[in-house]
Structure formats: C-alpha cells, structure tokens
C-alpha cells in the first residue's frame, strides 16, 4: 500500500503557522494568508480561517465503532460477538485498552508519526436509533433551535462577514447535507468542471446567455429566481478555478479503484491544492449499515477508508499542514451480534481525527466499559458529546471562531487530542 512517508510535506503539521501568526498578532488580520498563497482571489476569503481546512467524513449508515477501535481488554466484547470479534493479536497499534482494526494498516504510519488519534464512546447526548433522525440531529447540532441550520453552515457564518460560496462545500453527493444547510451559501458537487455556463468556450455568446438569464431570473419571484442569480455568480466564481482541480492526483498518489470516496477525496485534495479558499468540506463515505455479515463487510469498508485517507494526505502534499479530518457517524452499533452475523443500530461510537493539529498516536476516551450495568439498552454508552469533540478541533484550528454560536449551549469537555 501507499507509503505516506514519502514527500508528503507533512512537516507543516501542527501549531507552527498558527503560533507564529499569533505571536505576530496577525491572526485576525485579513489578507495575511493571501500573501502566503501568493496570488489567488480576494484576501478577505482567508483572513479569519488562517487557511486551515476541516474535512468532515460522514460514515453513513452507523459505523461499528467497536470494530474500528476494538476494546480488546473487555471480555464482554468477545462474548457478545462470537463470530465477528477481532482477536487482540490481529489489532494494529494496541495499547492496554484499545487497538485499531487490522484493515487500518495503511494509516499506521500516520498514527506512528502522531498525526492520527482514535476517540471512543462519542455520540449524541441521548440515544436515537433512527438513521435519518440521528443524522439530522448530528448535522443540525442545535437541538434548542427549530431553525434547520447545519453546524458547518454556522461555522462558515462565524468565519467571515460575507461567506464565499466555496467556504463550505460537500464533495461527492450533489444533495446538500443538513450540516451545510443555512443562510450562508454552500455547494454540493461532484466536481468543478461542470459548473460552467452554456457556451462557456465562446466568451461573447456566453456573456449574451448570462445577460439574458440574469434578466429573467432576477425578475422571477420565488426560490428558483434566487437560485438562478446565485447560479450565475457560482459559474463566474467556478470559472476562476484552474481546470487542474478535476484532473486527478499527482504521480505517485493512488486512490483505490472504483471508490466513490477516493474520487471525492481526490477532488477535495485538488480543490485544496488550488487554494480557492475552502474552509470546510463534507464528504460522504456510505455503506456502513452492517445488519449482516459484519466481519468481511466492515473490513472492506475500513480498508477502503484507510487507503483513501492515506492517499488523500499524500495527495495534499505541502497543503496537508492545513487540513484536519474528522469522521462522524449517526450512531454506533449494538454490542451483541444479531442473527445474521451483523449488528443492529446502537449508540456510542468511535471517532477518528487525522492531520493538522492532532496530538495523535494515542487513543482518547472516558471509557465507560462494557459492563452490563454500563450499557445503554445493550449499547456502548456515550461519555463525550460529539459536539465537544468538534469544538476541540475548531478551537485549535479556527481560534477566532465563537464556538457558542456554532454549538449553542454545549459545555466543552476536552479530551486533549488536539495540540
């Protein structure tokens, strides 16, 4: 598999740039990062974020955290899962309590360099075993408000007075996830080459098309009128992106074949390398709903996830120092196997954090244990609110952000996994 040691330019990881900026008193000054990037676009896009980027990987379907980060010291785990438990001897980087699933092998070099951490017993403040409600709750992340505004949208709103359409993007699925819904502009796209206006290769004709569309959509009442005007702005903005974004990974970087996740992360890396000002990227990694045959299915999923992420950080090159990845899933799964060698919907879950700013190479958890008195309805309990995990990341990577506006009413309980 890919060796992420080679030339990944990862030495920029961590707090170095941020600290330097802080020392110089420049952190909040717009334009600072523009000079770092050299040339592209407006400076205000970058000012508050210091060029840092958060990638949120959604493991759709409810990933089995107990397979990802195996609590190998728990006899309850082995007795509840007679056909799908993973023996301690097979685990990667085990400590006294946990070990990574063997299929995480491609990420072990990052783990050993301290660029990846494993968190456990993370989740929603109360159990919800419905995929769709749980996803909605995780991504809205503001149960006190009835407004449907996603937490990434609130994050984007907090980082710039007038956010840019590329600040918060979903790459892969074209259906906007709840996390991105809200007043700040957002974009859900597979790529960037198909955001051009008709006849875009003919400047004169393209302009006539744009003018006539603007006249019609600006006078059209209703959401389609607004969407049309925003579409013209988006097309103009997309035209500024170098065509190289969609061209694929540089030589030596290989994503797994036929992997939608690999494609989405490849495009994400291209976008980040193009330095067009993105701050948060949501990427879906689907297919974690393992009601049957957990063993080989979760192994395949983890292998793909690990190969994709290893390739992604290599693909980012020098820009890896700006990028932090966090995995989220709507719920963990039941401790006890069902009748299909699978696991039904559960509660507490594992989270992985990789990349810039991570104090990695270690597992972090307020581990509740799997003792029968500790379980919630047969599931792993939650001892750390997932929003507290996100706050810990945002505080380290986006220090100017007012976290009380992103996650209203949440008391942060840091695990210490960020530097």
């Amino acid at each position: 598999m890919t060796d992420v040691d080679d030339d990944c330019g990862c030495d920029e990881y961590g707090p170095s740039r941020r600290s330097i900026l802080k020392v110089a008193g420049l952190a909040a000054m717009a334009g600072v990062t523009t000079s770092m990037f050299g040339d592209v676009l407006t400076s205000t896009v970058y000012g508050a974020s210091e060029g840092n980027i958060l990638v949120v990987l959604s493991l759709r379907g409810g990933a089995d955290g107990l397979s990802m980060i195996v609590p190998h010291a728990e006899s309850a785990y082995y007795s509840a899962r007679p056909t799908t438990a993973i023996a301690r001897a097979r685990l990667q980087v085990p400590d006294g309590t946990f070990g990574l699933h063997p299929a995480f092998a491609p990420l072990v070099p990052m783990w050993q360099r301290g660029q990846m951490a494993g968190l456990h017993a993370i989740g929603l403040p109360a159990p919800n075993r419905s995929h769709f409600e749980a996803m909605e709750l995780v991504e809205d992340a503001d149960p006190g408000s009835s407004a449907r505004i996603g937490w990434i949208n609130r994050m984007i709103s907090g980082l710039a007075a007038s956010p840019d359409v590329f600040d918060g993007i979903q790459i892969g699925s074209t259906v906007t996830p709840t996390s991105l819904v809200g007043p700040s502009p957002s974009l859900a796209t597979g790529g960037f080459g198909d955001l051009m206006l008709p006849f875009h290769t003919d400047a004169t004709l393209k302009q006539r098309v744009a003018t006539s569309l603007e006249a019609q959509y600006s006078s059209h009442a209703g959401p389609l009128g607004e969407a049309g005007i925003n579409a013209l702005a988006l097309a103009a903005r997309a035209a500024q992106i170098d065509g190289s974004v969609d061209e694929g990974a540089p030589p030596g970087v290989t994503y797994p074949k036929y992997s939608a996740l690999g494609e989405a992360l490849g495009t994400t890396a291209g976008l980040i390398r193009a330095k067009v000002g993105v701050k948060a990227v949501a990427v879906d990694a689907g297919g974690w709903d393992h009601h049957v045959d957990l063993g080989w299915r979760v192994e395949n999923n983890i292998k793909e996830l690990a190969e994709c992420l290893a390739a992604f950080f290599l693909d980012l090159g020098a820009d890896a120092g700006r990028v932090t990845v966090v995995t989220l899933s709507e719920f963990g799964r039941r401790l006890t196997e069902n009748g299909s060698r699978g696991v039904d919907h559960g509660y507490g879950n594992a989270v992985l954090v990789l990349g810039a700013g991570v104090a990695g190479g270690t597992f972090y958890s307020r581990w509740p244990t799997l003792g029968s008195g500790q379980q919630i309805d047969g599931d792993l309990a939650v001892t750390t609110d997932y929003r507290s995990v996100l706050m810990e990341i945002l505080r380290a990577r986006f220090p100017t952000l007012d976290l009380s506006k992103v996650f209203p009413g949440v008391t942060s309980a840091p695990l210490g996994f960020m530097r």
Partner: protein
Amino acid sequence: MSTTRLSASVSPKVLPAMHQHVASRFTFGVDETVVADMLSVGGWQQWFERQLAWSRLSDPHGAAASSWFPLLADSPSAAWGRVKRQEKSAWDFGFDLASYTMARKIVARRQVQEVMADFWSNLLYIPAGEDRSFPWRISFDEVIRQHALGRFRTLLRAAVVHPAMSGWLNNSSNTKNGINENLGRELLELYTVGRPAGYDEADVKSSARILTGFKVKVFDGYDASYEPNDHWVGPVSVLGFSHANADADGRAVVAAYLDHLARHPSTATRIARRLCTRFVSDTPSAGLVAAVAAAYLAADTDIRPALRVLVRHPEFAASVGQKVRTPTEDVVNVARVIGSVPRGAAGEGALARHVIWMSSTVGQQQFDWPRPDGFPETSSTWTSPARVIRSWNIHYALAGNWWGSTDAAIPARADLLPTTWPITLGQLVDHQSRMLLGREAPESLRRAVAETLNLPESRSFANVAAVSDWTFTVVRGAVLNTPEGMLR
C-alpha cells in the same frame, strides 16, 4: 402526426391554466399527447378520472418499453446464474431497470400511474442493482406499478414481504433464533406511521419478530420461501396492535399487522403529507394534509379518493410555480416536450440509456439513492445554484441532441415547426414557448432569446430551411432555460 400536430400552427393551442397545472403536476411532461387527450375528453377532471382508471387506458408504448431490456425478463435464478457465471453484474441489472424506468416515464400514456409508481417507489424505496435484492427488483417494480393507483394496504402487504425487500433490509435472515431489526424498524419509521407516532424499542422488536419466516437464499439462487420453523412464536404488541401469534405460520399475523399499520392515523398523515409535498408544495398546510388523510382513511387506504381531494383543494390551484422538477423529472420532461422519444435501448448510445447519465449530470440518478428513505420530496433539495447551472447545460444538449443519442424517434425540424411561413423570431419563440412550456411567450422571454441570438425579434424566417439547426437549438434551449422550464 404531420396533419394534426399542434405545432403546425404558428400559434399552437395551449391548455387553460388549471388544465395545464394539473397536467404539469401529474405527468412527467405535458407533450402533444397529453394536450390532445385532455382536450378530447372535455377537461382536466375527465382526464384525471380516465388516468385513475388506468387499466382501461391503452398504452402500447409503455407496455413495450420493458421488452427493450432483455435482462429484465430473467427469472431471479436466471439472473443470479448470469452473475455467478460473470456474464453480467448486479449493476447491469440495476442499470437496465433504471433505464427502463426512465424510458417508460417518457413514453407512457398512463402518466398518472407512472407518476404514482414513482411516488411509491420512492416511499418503499429499494435501490436498483443492490446485491441482495437485484434478482427480484424488477418483480418488486411490477408490484408497485400494479398497486400504484389502488389501496395502500394491498400495496404494503405485497411490498413489505416481497423477496426484494427481504433481501435489501435483511428480513431474509431475520429468524426466531436471531432477530434482525432492520426491516421491522424501517417499516414503522419509513413505510407507515413514522417517528412522531411514538413507538419505542420494544415495538421495534415486536415488529421484527412478526416479520420472521420470510426466507430468500441470498447469494445462492435467491429462491424465496416462507419457513414456519423460522417464525418467532409468542405474543406481540406494536402501537395498539396485539396478537397471540401462536401459530408457526405467521403470515396471517403479518397481514393483520400490516393492515393495522396501513389504517393507522399516523400513516394516513404521513402519506398525505408526502403526497402534498410532491404535488402541492414543500410546505402544505395542516388543513390540506388533514383533508387528504381523512379521504385516505375513509376509503380504507384507497389512494384515488385522496388524490381527488388533493387536486380539488384550493391550495392545489394556488400552488402554481411552487414545485421545482427534480433532475430526473427535468430530463424526462425535456425529452417529452421536445418530442425525442426512445424506441429501443440498443447500445450505450441509446437515448433510453443517455437519459440516465444526463440526469446524473444534473445531480440525481434513477434508483441510485443509497439509503432506504428515498430521494427527498422537497423542491428545496433540487433548487441549488449548481443544479440550475447543470440544468441550463443539459437543456441545450437535449434540444440539440449534442450527445448524438440513438434508437429514438427524434423528429425532423420540419415536423416541429409551423406549416405557414414566413414567421418572425418573436413568433418562433412564442411557438416554442407554447410547445415546450405550454404557455404564450411573454415579452421578457422573446427579448431574452433574441438577445442570446443577437438578432432582432422582427427578424423574419422565410421557411423551415431558414431556421438553422443552430438557431433552433439555441431557441429551444433558451426557452427551456427560462425559470418556468424547470417548474412543474
């Protein structure tokens, strides 16, 4: 067609506003056949009734569409055999089913049945080409279409225990010795009462227990059977339904349980809201939802009275312009109104296959949603700026057949244009607005198209030949790209 076609006139007839509104919401595109049918039967009410009585409406093109996809005739064991021998993959079966579905939407005369088949397929959603269900997926599709305009409880009984559903949501391995909650949970949450009904985890367990016994030999011939030995026996209770469930053959309990769910007021409300969201607006009033739900319950889950109440409600009439076509609906609509109609599916370049990739390009692919909740019914989901850009592009591509689609009836320009010449550019735009949008072209549209072409509206065309392919494509693309071109 050439003697009676609407487009022969310089000012083709358009439907009265309410007729156009009903046709636009309850078909996949108001083409010449819809206009002619509606005018010939005397009004939208009569047209709607004839569409609801679908079995008496002849539909040779709709019926022929499945024959263009030979794989779809495979029995489940034949389909599995092909995959096992590595002749074909599950994906191939899924792609054919998706192409067939798109083609049928374009060619069917039973449009209301097709629209409702789409509605139920999205509620009782199973992706195409999924490993555990693909050999049975076409059979499931037939079940949906058969019951699309009937009683929901009949549809629910046929769909929930169908082998495709058993494979997809793992009921095939849900047995008394090892309960698998997947189908039991989604039956409550997605297919019937929904979360607001307030069921708990004990209800979910009972629901799963009732459903034990339906076996499918997944990855091994896919034979389907009922196995009393696998059925969980003992008292069950879900949301007011209780049963001793003492018999090893639990199928009678399943039927009674599904009837209970179909007749539950929460199911009525949930289905009514979904219908109103699809056919009226993203934010239907509580009053409208209650009226549709009441009709559904009064008719013992028959969907036709519910649709009659919906379409006659003042909120329906007032909702013109409030629904945006999904990418799939957009592509199908354009194919219908420009008159490009699949006549087969031979080869990768067939229009029936291209339409899949076209809608995928715009942001939605038939039966490709990965989760059991189906594509969102809300228009807001499909109103993003990126989607609008992609629709603008695909409209031109379809209007000009830029993809070079084959195995389709694509009319010659002469058969799409008036028989009386000369006409001005303004008249040409109006003509195409009537044909493609079902309405007269306002001055703003005539001006917009003229500006795009950089010609005066008064520019005169002497005959068909004077309207070049290029000019015609730009006129049609620009007409389709007006906001109304994306609304239904």
